[in-house]
């Protein structure tokens, strides 16, 4: 199967440019982001009994964890719309599906394009601030930083696919808002955004290992901290989930398409 890479790169580039037009809004969002960085980091800053290691992390690592997750939560979308719901409800989806372009891939590329924007204008500033105030320690090597970036890319893919799936529900319901709310809640929690996954009790940890959510934020973060166990296993797990979600999205999309044809949207 020949994939029109150039087309998808164009989708990504256009999305990046579109996001770039809203730079002012981004500064406002960054402002809020920074507040939340302090909210969440302050908690661990003050509750760690000195010199202890809890859930496998010492206080500096825990703070870094918080800083990292806050830095990449726009790159690896923890909430937000990616346009599928809107397309379905407006009927535009029929146009998109009739084009010789894979709708899943094009939507993915667009959101990844936006992610690239956020990588530059959210992640970097927050990492900078985090390092400045002492929340974050710098990566031990360039290799580790590169690993972090790769894992972030994979994590973004997973997260976007999950949102794609959630928004597909608009085919069968008047609004996907309810399902999205549910998924958002699950992503926010299991990804480690609210508290590091390492602090989950073992019983919950067992469950989350079999869900895709922790492979969005948690995996790249732990890889950065060199606490993610075997690097290859971690990346493989992410790739596996990408594969699974891709297949599920494609299947559901085809069901939705069929419904469109039969019922006329």
């Amino acid at each position, binding site marked *: 199967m020949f994939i029109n890479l150039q087309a998808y790169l164009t989708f990504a580039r256009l999305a990046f440019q579109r996001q770039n037009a*809203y730079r*002012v*809004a981004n*500064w*406002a*969002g960054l*402002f*809020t982001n*920074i*507040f*939340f960085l*302090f*909210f969440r980091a*302050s*908690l661990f*800053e*003050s*509750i*760690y*009994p000195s010199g202890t290691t*809890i*859930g496998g992390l010492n206080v500096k690592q825990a703070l870094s964890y918080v800083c990292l997750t806050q830095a990449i939560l726009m790159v690896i979308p923890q909430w937000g719309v990616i346009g599928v719901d809107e397309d379905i409800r407006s009927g535009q989806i029929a146009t998109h599906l009739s084009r010789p372009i894979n709708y899943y891939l094009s939507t993915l590329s667009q959101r990844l394009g936006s992610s690239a924007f956020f990588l530059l204008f959210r992640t970097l500033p927050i990492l900078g601030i985090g390092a400045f105030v002492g929340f974050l320690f710098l990566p031990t090597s360039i290799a580790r930083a590169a690993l972090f970036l790769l894992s972030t890319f994979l994590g973004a893919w997973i997260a976007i696919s999950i949102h794609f799936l959630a928004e597909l529900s608009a085919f069968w*319901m*008047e*609004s996907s*808002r*309810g*399902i*999205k*709310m*549910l998924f*958002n*809640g*699950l992503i*926010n*929690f299991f990804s480690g955004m*609210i*508290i590091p996954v390492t*602090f*989950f*009790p073992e019983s*919950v940890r067992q469950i989350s290992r079999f869900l895709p959510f922790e492979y969005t934020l948690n995996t790249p973060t732990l890889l950065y901290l060199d606490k993610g166990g075997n690097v290859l296993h971690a990346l493989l797990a992410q790739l596996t989930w990408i594969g699974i979600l891709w297949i599920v999205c494609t299947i559901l999309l085809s069901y939705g398409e069929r419904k469109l044809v039969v019922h006329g949207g």
Partner: protein
Amino acid sequence: MINLYISLLMAQIKGQMSYKKSFVLELIGYLVVNIIDLFVIYFIFLKFPSIKGWSMGEVYYLYGVASVSYAIAQLFAESLEKVPELIRTGEFDHFLIRPRSPILQIMPLSFRLNRIGRLIQGAIALSLAFPILQLELNCEKVMLFMIAVFSAVIVYFGLFLAGAAFCFWTIQSSEALNAFTYGGVELSKYPITIYRPWMRRLFLYIVPVGFVSYYPAIAFLEKSDPLGGPLWASYFSPVIAIIFAMVTWLFWKLGVNHYQSTGS
């Protein structure tokens, strides 16, 4: 006036209920999302001994009050978040043509019944707190609780209003106020002593979300205050809340004026 508000509200709810499936799902979804948050506190206390001298029960109390207050404020004021959209589409003009206050007309617009999920969650948090704390409820404590909720509701309402007013000058930057609305409730979940001094001072004295959540709570829970605040601080909360709300209301009026003078 209240009559009108209720009618507009009923109409909104009726409109929402016409989307039955989503309505139920949203109700459930929101409840689940909020319940998960309660587990987060539990998980933290499984691994950590205390939060700056606060026990799990005490944190649940603080959290419960914050949630209940925010939920109540949200039920009334969340529609104010629609103001940027209303300005953009020109729909805001419709409110100026009618002989009523725009705030009153906007408030029922986006009344989301599912926000009750957070109210329920707050109630659950409180019901978890009380058996753990084994406190004796007396008149004073009930008063402190009501003061806490009342003051917090007013401050949150003021924050929503300020957020909306901000949009009259710049639509794109409106998200910045989320740092104080969502941030406010996030911050109120935990004792304010855990935050760095600058943040503590900001949320105690300027955006008094911290003030109205912290002081009534330590009075209720009979804890000592490492910040050395006066004993009457908790009873002062309603006053502070009302003053804050009035300031934001003035800011709103300035905003409407600006809108009418520049036609942005």
